[in-house]
């Protein structure tokens, strides 16, 4: 009798709970009309850049009543990898490190976008070749480009005028001669104003892996079979010889002291912005920084000077960019794709985001979008991006690990600690090949 009583009580409670839940569901459905999905996107941007990105997403939100997009900023590749491993993934992820696309595509950690592209009849030729390259690995496309960083040349017009120079240098020998003309020294021999600072490691334009210089000399990293050809392509030794000769002209130690006294490159006291550097190679983002921090600076932008023997390369530059994709295990695959598609292919979205962060929009159509805020300085970078000779660094199974080997050699070279250049480059080739082989060990990838 007692058992029957307990059974009845349990049945009553469960029944009441069921009725309450049903009532609540129908009430919710009744008020919202349609089901709203919350989707999350992880991006690397922070501060003002994140604000600009949120603005683009807000516009998307307002056009799509079926989803609400939550933006999480300050994300790096460690966090993305950890999320994928845990299975608790956001719906859309983006990374500043396009070099990792090999890992993401090959492992399936970022899902293949080809079925979505085919379904929506999107031709990837809408992106310039370089951006097409760094968003896939061995033909597997698991990412799309979301704005690009393009490297070009900045020069201080007032200093040029004072030195009697009328236009930016177009060749490396012109750059050297201008650098010498524009350099000013203190009474103790230390550098007061550097005409051009060639020191590898000094600001982004002198990345020690030589990535920003390689397109200017037409330097090739690998041959058709993926073997390193740094010692075989004479462009590398030419590049390194030119760079070291200018370092030696300044004096290695003097340049190091100059660098140590120069402010952080992302501060308002950046050497170029405060007149301590007359010329530099830098990314397009500097236009926005100067606009914000030193709007009265009299400067110009142009494609970076190129190897004297290859004038046809003038107009090209180094390109890199943010990649965006959908991680495996995602819950709202279709909604995630709709957002990725909007952010990467909609000319208006790309243009307003480009205006917000002053990075280069990544479709051919968006480069000429009327929504792009006109700016003569920035226009230079749009042209460099569209130039078919602009290149990026190779996507390999070892990510950007080969860059560390190039860097290790190059910084020793500029310090005069690398010995014979030809032998050093041959050794470097062997090291890179061994590293790639190790990264592919076991047939992976």
């Amino acid at each position, binding site marked *: 009798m007692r058992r029957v009583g307990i059974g009845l009580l349990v049945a009553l409670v469960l029944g009441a709970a069921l009725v309450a839940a049903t009532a609540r569901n129908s009430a919710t459905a009744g008020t919202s009309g349609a089901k709203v999905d919350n989707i999350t996107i992880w991006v690397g941007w922070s501060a003002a850049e994140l604000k600009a990105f949120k603005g683009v997403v807000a516009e998307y939100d307002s056009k799509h009543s079926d989803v609400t997009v939550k933006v999480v900023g300050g994300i*790096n*590749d*460690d*966090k993305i*990898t950890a999320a*994928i*491993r845990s299975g608790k993934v956001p719906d859309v992820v983006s990374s*500043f*490190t396009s*070099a*990792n696309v090999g*890992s*993401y595509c*090959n*492992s*399936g*950690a970022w899902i293949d976008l080809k079925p979505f592209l085919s379904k929506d009849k999107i031709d990837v030729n809408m992106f310039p070749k370089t951006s097409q390259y760094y968003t896939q690995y061995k033909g597997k496309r698991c990412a799309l480009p979301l704005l690009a960083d393009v490297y070009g040349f900045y020069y201080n017009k007032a200093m040029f005028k004072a030195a009697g120079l009328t236009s930016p240098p177009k060749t490396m020998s012109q750059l050297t001669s201008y650098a010498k003309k524009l350099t000013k020294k203190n009474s103790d021999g230390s550098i007061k104003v550097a005409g051009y600072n060639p020191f590898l*490691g*000094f*600001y*982004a334009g002198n*990345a*020690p*892996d030589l990535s920003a210089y390689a397109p200017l000399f037409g330097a090739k990293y690998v041959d058709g079979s993926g073997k390193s050809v740094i010692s075989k392509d004479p462009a590398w030794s030419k590049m390194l010889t030119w760079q070291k000769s200018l370092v030696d002209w300044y004096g290695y*130690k003097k340049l*190091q*002291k*100059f*660098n*140590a*006294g*120069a402010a*952080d*490159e992302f501060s308002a006291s950046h050497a170029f912005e405060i007149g301590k550097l007359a010329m530099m190679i830098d990314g397009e983002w500097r236009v926005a920084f100067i606009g914000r921090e030193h709007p009265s600076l009299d400067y110009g932008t142009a494609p970076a000077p190129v190897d004297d023997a290859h004038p046809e390369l003038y107009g090209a530059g180094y390109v890199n960019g943010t990649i965006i994709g959908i991680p495996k295990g995602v819950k709202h695959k279709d909604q995630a794709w709709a957002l990725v598609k909007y952010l990467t292919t909609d000319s208006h979205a790309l243009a307003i985001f480009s205006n917000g962060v002053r990075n280069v929009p990544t479709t051919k159509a968006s480069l000429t979008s009327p929504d792009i805020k006109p700016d003569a300085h920035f226009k230079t970078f749009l042209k460099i991006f569209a130039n078919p000779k602009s290149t990026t660094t190779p996507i390999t199974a*070892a*990510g*950007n*690990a080969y*860059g*560390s*080997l190039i*860097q*290790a050699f190059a*910084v*020793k070279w500029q*310090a005069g*600690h690398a010995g014979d250049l030809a032998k050093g480059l041959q*050794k470097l080739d062997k*090291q890179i090949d*061994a*590293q790639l082989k*190790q*990264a592919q*060990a*076991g*047939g*992976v990838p």
Partner: protein
Amino acid sequence: MASSAAATAQPLDRTRARRRAAWRRRRLVLLLMAPWLIGFSAFFGYPLVMSVYLSFTHYDLLSSPKWIGTANYRYLFTQDPQVGEAVKNTLWIIAVMVPLQVVFAFGVALMLARARRGVGFFRTIFYLPALAPPVAATLAFVYILNPATGPVNVLLKHLGIDGPLWFQSPSWSKPSLVLLGLWGVGNIMIIFLAAILDVPRHLYESAELDGAGPLQRLRWVTLPTISPVILFSVVIGVIAGLQYFTQAYVAANVASGQASQAGDQTVNNLGYPEASTLFYPVELYQHGFRYFNMGYASAMSVLLLVVAFTITVLIIRNSRRWVHYVGAAK
């Protein structure tokens, strides 16, 4: 017959009872040790076993590990161009920083033990740097030793000396890290101080009566008595040297002028300048978390464990000749 059976049954019962009691005791010990055992197995045993397994695989953190035999070890011992440099730097920091830290900490402790006035104040002052977080301390040192704008070189310039490039120079970067290590030596210093103050007074008095001077008392009384503490400091110092990471990571990033957040892969300053601060754990981190080459990083970590274990065993074996434990039979 019945009485003899009862007589044999009694010892059997006693044995059983003893076994039961012993089992109960063991069970209690196991129960009391359970929190430690679980923690040890989960956070030490399991990762250790997994590291050994992963060291024989290709593992990019995203795909399943793939067995590749000894390929990672072959690359580590015969081909990796940067690991040699990392090993050299790590050995340098152990060979130079550890002895200097021990000597410096001992010297400061000796002075503090003899101080008559302001003892508390000086002990606090010398210990205080040990409380500074390593990242903050390194940032401060890079600022102080900035070759162009840092107060040290400005002062040296006033004295007519052209100061070194400190963290910007491959010859000076490691000595700069040693200076940072000596500045933050408070933890070892406080252990030495406690040990020195613990040396029985009567030993000094006996030595003095035998005509021993201050140096002889130091050599024959203080040093032997505190030798277990010296051994402890050396072992801890060597292990810390093998794991030297934070200061090198921060110094390289900041001194290069292109500071990046942990995990940011867009710039690579590790080892700056010229790989002079590329220590073994920095290289290991680089492979594991920058290049997602976790199988290879695991092989590196297994080697690190073996080396740390071997060095510790060698030091402890060698210590039998010079470490004296009070009250221990010789």
